[in-house]
């Protein structure tokens, strides 16, 4: 089946920042994304799990599929939000069907 190049950006970020991130994405013209729940994790700021949660609402994973040429805009927008916060951003090359969407 005929597929098309795209980028899969995965942003793991604190839940309280999710709305700010998706707004920033929308402003950057990225209107397609999916948010996945996160159970726990570990990083420089230590380990946490959702069970240990009253005060912190934990983190979420935001996945965006975008056309390669829109990657930079996306990363700039995302970085402006993530910058001062804990979390990680990764980008992978993928193939998508239905290119018109991205």
């Amino acid at each position, binding site marked *: 089946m005929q597929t098309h190049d795209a980028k899969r950006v995965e942003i793991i970020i604190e839940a309280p*920042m999710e*709305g700010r991130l998706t707004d920033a994405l929308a402003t950057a013209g990225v209107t397609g994304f999916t948010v996945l729940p996160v159970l726990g994790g570990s990083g420089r*700021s230590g*380990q*946490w799990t959702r069970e240990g949660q*009253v*005060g912190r*609402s934990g983190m979420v994973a935001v996945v965006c599929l975008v056309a390669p040429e829109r990657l930079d805009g996306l990363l700039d927008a995302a970085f402006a939000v993530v910058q001062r916060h804990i979390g990680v951003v990764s980008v992978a090359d993928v193939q998508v069907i239905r290119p018109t969407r991205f």
Partner: protein
Amino acid sequence: MVDILTLAGQNLLTPMILCFALGLAAAIARSDLTVPEAAAKMMSLYLLFAIGFKGGVAVADHGLDGQLIAALVGGVALSFALPFVAFGLLRGLTRLSALDAAAVAAHYGSISIVTFVTATSVLASRGIAAEGYMVAVAAAMEAPAIVSALWLVSRGGKGAGVQMDARLWHEILLNGSIVLLVGAFLIGFATGAPGMARIDAFIVAPFQGVLCLFLLDMGLVAGRGLRGARGVLDWRAVAFGLVMPMIGAAAGLAVALVLGLSTGGVALMMVLAASASYIAVPAAMRVALPEANPSIYLTLSLGVTFPFNLIIGIPAYVAIAVALTQG
């Protein structure tokens, strides 16, 4: 004093406190006992709804005396003022950075609704009445402390450190627990006794049982937090977590006596001032002061001050309120 200790003793033998202790012990012993997140959230919604509704019904029954406004003003003033005390204490007593100190201070100016709920059930079990509108006071005290803390940071040249926007204010003022607490209060006020008659089998009878399971989860969370935060707090910080609630309680006591609240009202105002937030404020701090270390303020609020208030604080505050208003 002795009297207070015996009270604390009795208090220790309630299912609520023992459930909290069980959770604490299970977490520290690394048991895999956990309360599902959704269930814990639902129990807190239940507790907020029940306590707000009861408060509203009480106000509908006894009518609104002008004190409501006065009490709200007093509570808001406490919430604004206490962070300055806490900040000063932290900077003088501990080695925390100005940023972390301000973040912690915000928590102690704000309130812990579970501590408040537990106090109301202690009062109820001892047959001590309190002003129904204290739940409204509780809601009003959640946010002001955040303003003071952020002002402390920006003043400290750390202006760059503060990420404050209209959106965050909106999130703070309309955060779920405030909305539900105030909403349930208004619904209870509007429907009064007839409304209560319809749902008391749901919000009155099982209340203490639900509180037990909720405190079990609080114990698990506090215990896991303490385990994870080993080494984050030195003895100075811990000392702050034990001293600050007493200072808060004293301030709350003064305000309550000036306001001329009832015995129960005095006790609850002390509890509110003595308690530290662990839901609304931490979320706000993550957004506004991302560089402040969450383990510090969460461990202090949830791991040190919450248990202190639960086990020693509440019975002491109640005893003092009784002594000073009924003596």
